[in-house]
């Protein structure tokens, strides 16, 4: 019974992974990709080129920095949301559903909407202008990096909220009772009694948020289009452009292998944070 699923997995995941590794060692371009087995073997040339003469190091920096900032923002937001949505109040069910909307919306919809919100003279600029701040370009130039961070954080935080809310359900009712009797302020109670229960779920949420952000191709692709502004040239977009616009499949495969290395550490952390059996 493991066989059909197992075989299919080997076929659809294992084979492509091996082929990806092989392509990264070939000089494969638009002339040779239809007969990839005949393409010239170039050893580690693609890897050397990726590190020395391509935008890869910059892309790794942009990806890591943006994913880290997004993860950093989602922590207090998601945690505050979970605490606020846990206590009973009228309309709690509805509010909980609404809070999920940014996470539930497809990334291509989020990208399309925010692209219009952030366009020059768009609604974001008029809102910022009303606060007396300078309107400016959001989809190009140095601010585009912050636009990416803000939009990805806007759509990513509910995962942390969900995990923290699930963690709150596991808090022992006696802890609540003890907290009620104890005279300490609400913040001290939270820190001493409640937060220890949330450590696991929050660690999991942070790792997944980081992974999702690093691997997110759709949002930067739709939000900024290609060729993408240099400040938001993240790893997936760079790899995509290198293969499907410049047709440098070998170089691009080497970049993809590098991006696997970037997510390797968070993946290991992820596997440790999840209950496997």
């Amino acid at each position, binding site marked *: *019974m*493991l066989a059909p*699923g197992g075989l*299919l*997995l080997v076929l*659809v*995941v294992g084979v*492509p*992974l091996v*082929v*990806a590794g092989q*392509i990264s060692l070939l000089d494969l371009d638009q002339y040779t*990709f239809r*007969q*990839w087995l005949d393409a010239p073997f170039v050893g580690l040339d693609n890897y050397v080129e990726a590190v020395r003469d391509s935008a890869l190091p910059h892309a790794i920096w942009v990806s890591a920095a943006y994913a880290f900032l997004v993860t950093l923002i989602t922590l207090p*937001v998601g945690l505050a*949301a979970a*605490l*606020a*949505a*846990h*206590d*009973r109040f009228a309309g709690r069910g509805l*509010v909980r*559903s609404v*809070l*999920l*909307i*940014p996470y*539930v*919306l*497809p990334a*291509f*919809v989020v990208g399309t909407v925010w*692209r*219009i919100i952030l366009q020059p003279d*768009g*609604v974001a600029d*008029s809102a910022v202008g009303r606060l007396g701040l300078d309107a400016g370009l959001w989809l190009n130039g140095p601010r585009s990096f912050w636009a990416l961070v803000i939009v990805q954080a*806007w759509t990513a935080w509910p995962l942390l909220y969900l995990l923290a809310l699930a963690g709150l359900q596991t808090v022992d009712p006696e802890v*609540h*009772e003890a907290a*009620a009797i104890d005279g300490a302020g*609400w913040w001290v109670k939270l820190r001493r009694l409640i937060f220890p229960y949330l450590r696991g779920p929050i660690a999991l949420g942070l790792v997944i948020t980081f992974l999702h952000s690093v691997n997110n*191709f759709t949002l930067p*692709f739709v939000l900024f289009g290609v060729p993408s502004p240099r400040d938001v040239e993240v790893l*997936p977009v760079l790899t*995509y452009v290198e*293969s*499907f616009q410049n047709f440098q*499949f070998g170089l*691009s*495969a080497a970049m*993809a*292998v590098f991006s*696997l290395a970037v*997510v390797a550490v*968070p993946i290991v952390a992820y596997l440790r944070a*999840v209950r496997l*059996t």
Partner: protein
Amino acid sequence: MRHTRLLPRPVQTAVLVVLLLTVLGPVSYMVFASVSSDLDVASGAYLPTTVDLGAYRRIWSTVDLGTGLLNSLLVAGVVAAASAFVSVGSAYVLVRFAFRGRVAILRALLAMQSIPGTLMLLPVFVLFASASAAIGVQVIGTRWALGLTYLTFALPFSTWVMVTYLRGLPPELDEAARIDGASSWRILTRIIIPLSWPGLVVSGIFAFLLGWNDVLFASVMTDPDTRTAAVALQVFGATQEGGAIPVYGQLMAAALVCAAPVVVLYLVFQRYLVGGLTAGGVK
């Protein structure tokens, strides 16, 4: 028991108000802009000066959204059904039997979900292109090829969701059947699958959304006839650059139409889906 509060009432209210404004600001703007004039959107007005529902009529011819939605429905639907049913067998074995390599497989299932999509797309594209050249049949651009590429993510994903679901079923059920002499196959089809409908639905919905939401694979693996709604919208948006005022109303209307089935699915199955989300933290 007295119900104790985590946050004082004013703090709770403040947090909720800020969050709701942050969420509903852009979401409400999406609705307003879809019925606004394009000039209103271009000048940064939040509320429409005139309400015009015409965009919802025009998108069906300008974006060819009908074809896109149908393609998305077909590909994502088949992938969802296939991976849900294939995964229940694998998940059953992984949950109920102890064997060497079991934990390694569970680890691999999770790790596979975090592999960068580009790392999978490249070899799949090259393999399909080579296959086409070898057998003389166009592979890239067909819905089958697209569905097959989605399995690379949907399958590990669905299997993991089913693993977390089957863990919750009491083992006494199949132990009793086994004592009565039932084969593993019979236990799976007569006991496990009938009891796993909620799990199957959740793993199917997640696999469906994976296909519905994808732009990476579909942008490369489709042609104008087999384009999914996601790619149709992305292409439509990209072609609005330059020239006169873009048709913002239609873009927003089309985006809303693409998002509506997803949001409805979530609202209907919210209880089950949230459980699935927090079990593996999958999207």
